[in-house]
């Protein structure tokens, strides 16, 4: 039998203990890559690998903020819709002012504001996070569609477009953004007091509160960060596809959740790493890329993502149960 307290393992210890888990996932990516190389001539080409990395970067950016939320045993179902609203507002601002910088500020600001709203709903109003962010998702979708009224905003300055479609030393710009945020995220989660408090909240909120963790403030922080990361991701999509439509973020929530869970972060909070989420994002992107290359109809993608989520949580539940015995 376990008690609630031994769920919490020091993140640093958890990291070393999870190295094997991480290696299994890397091995899975490699095996999948080998399989896809034999099945498709296109997979192991420079173009496709760069494309996979670019997609991974986008998914990781959304999933990294979400990782923090899930570490606190919460969930943010609004990130896809948040991407939609942030992208559309940023696009309008860039069109109106001609300033990419203002656009970037708008995108990240809008994302963070929505995330802050989620944080308030979850803490001040004590609404369960999956209900609060689910309601937020539909409200954002509604507002975005209403605002856009079926229109498309397209054609942005070349400088801004570099953010999504540019290259530096032959590597797509988003990959650099991804590496930067991987370092920031990993350092924040593993090496700062706030990061440790986030693990503590997920492992046992009551114990965390009793040991003086400002639970509400940290929760508002993680939802705000999750929103801000969705805002950042929206800018990269915008810069990449060079146009904004109301439905731009619609199909991104499920893959982001899948990336976090496949990356080994427990849905029940308190264990997982930001680096794991990167591997999860890579694994999921390779799966979806492989489905594309094998010319499987894209309609199968939500189905595959749904099954991957269920499998990941099932494995999580099983490991936890074995651990408890």
């Amino acid at each position, binding site marked *: 039998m376990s008690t609630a307290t031994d769920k919490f393992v020091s993140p640093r210890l958890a990291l070393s203990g999870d190295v094997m888990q991480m290696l299994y996932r890397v091995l899975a990516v490699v095996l999948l890559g080998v399989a896809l190389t034999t099945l498709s001539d296109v997979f192991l080409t420079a173009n496709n690998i760069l494309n996979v990395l670019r997609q991974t970067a986008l998914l990781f950016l959304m999933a990294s903020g979400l990782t923090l939320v899930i570490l606190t045993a919460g*969930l943010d*179902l609004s990130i896809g819709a948040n991407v939609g609203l942030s992208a559309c507002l940023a696009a309008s601002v860039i069109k109106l002012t001609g300033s990419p910088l203002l656009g970037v500020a708008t995108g990240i600001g809008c994302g963070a504001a929505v995330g802050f709203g989620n944080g308030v*709903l979850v803490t001040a*109003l*004590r*609404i*369960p996070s*999956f*209900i*609060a962010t*689910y*309601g*937020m998702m*539909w*409200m954002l*979708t*509604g*507002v*975005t*569609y*209403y605002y856009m*009224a079926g229109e498309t905003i397209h054609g942005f300055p070349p400088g801004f477009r570099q953010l999504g479609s540019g290259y530096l030393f032959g590597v797509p710009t988003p990959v650099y953004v991804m590496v930067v945020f991987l370092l920031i995220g990993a350092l924040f989660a593993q090496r700062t007091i706030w990061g440790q408090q986030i693990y503590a909240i997920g492992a046992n909120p009551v114990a965390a509160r009793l040991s003086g963790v400002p639970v509400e403030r940290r929760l508002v922080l993680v939802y705000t960060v999750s929103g801000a990361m969705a805002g950042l991701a929206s800018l990269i999509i915008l810069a990449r596809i060079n146009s904004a439509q*109301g439905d731009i973020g619609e199909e991104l929530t*499920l893959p982001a*959740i899948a990336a976090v869970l496949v990356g080994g972060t427990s*849905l*029940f909070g308190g264990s997982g790493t930001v680096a794991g989420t990167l591997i999860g994002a890579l694994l999921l992107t390779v799966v979806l890329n492989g489905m594309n290359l094998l010319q499987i*109809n894209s*309609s*199968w*993608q*939500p*189905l*595959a*993502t*749904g*099954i991957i*989520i*269920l499998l990941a*949580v*099932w494995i999580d*539940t099983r490991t936890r*149960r074995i651990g408890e015995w």
Partner: protein
Amino acid sequence: MTTQSLVATSLARVPGVVIALVSLCAVFGATNPGFATPANIANILTQSTILLLLALPMTLIIMTEGLDLSIGAVLTFASIILAITALVTESPTLAFLAALVVGLCFGLGNGVLIAVFDIPPFITTLGTLGIAQGLSLVVTDGQSVVGIPRSIEAIYSGTAAGIPLPVIIAALAYTFTYALLYHTRFGTYVFALGGNREALKVAGISVRGMLIRVYMFGGVMAGFAALLMTARLNSAHPTAGIGMEFDAIAAIAVGGTSFERGNGWLLGTLFGVITVGVLRNGLNLLAVPSSAQVACIGALVIIALFIDGLRGEP
């Protein structure tokens, strides 16, 4: 709970949802002459029937501290299977049975994943939402299924003794769920699942079996709702029911069922469904685009949950 406190809680709740309903009716009645007409009111009631069929089992599911996010996608997939079966076999009965089987399978799948595999309800049903939505797109290739037999359409447009058939179906569903929840042992266990799960275990009741049955009930009702929706649209479309689960959750939240304490109130859900129906209809009459309607319903949910949170304060 004593009779006195039961009356007190009921009184404390009735005003919440009834005030919302009455004030919405007053606002729409005052701003639009077309609102308070018998034809429009009949319209609201008929259109609310599909939502009620989803909200009734969802109330039970939420009472067990669960959630079914997949119910709208399952409704959509069942509707597509219903339409395709009707096209192939030309038998409305077989088509209806096929829709029920689809609903039953998804309900069973949800229940087994939640009760046996211990996967949290919201993530289970988020996964099965993806699966049902994916299957709908795969089967139809994104196209509508049209040309189904006229006899199916009659189920939505027909009347018996002057009352629209969907209203009769919804009334039967409400009566059935009411009897199930308040007058059977099953209903008592549903209350216990949310309020006192340990007591059920001690009493030797299979919690897993109960949970599976509650989610199966949801699936079957989605099958019934698929019949009404297909009949209403006279076709099936792979995105037709997407987001219906949100309207259902909204109706239940407005109706005063708590998401955390397992307190359910079926009559509140009925009022909540009508409130959402009135809101949609009134906004339609004011020519508010459906996108903005979703935002209004979202705001309604947050207000309702806020009030629910205030009530929960000791």
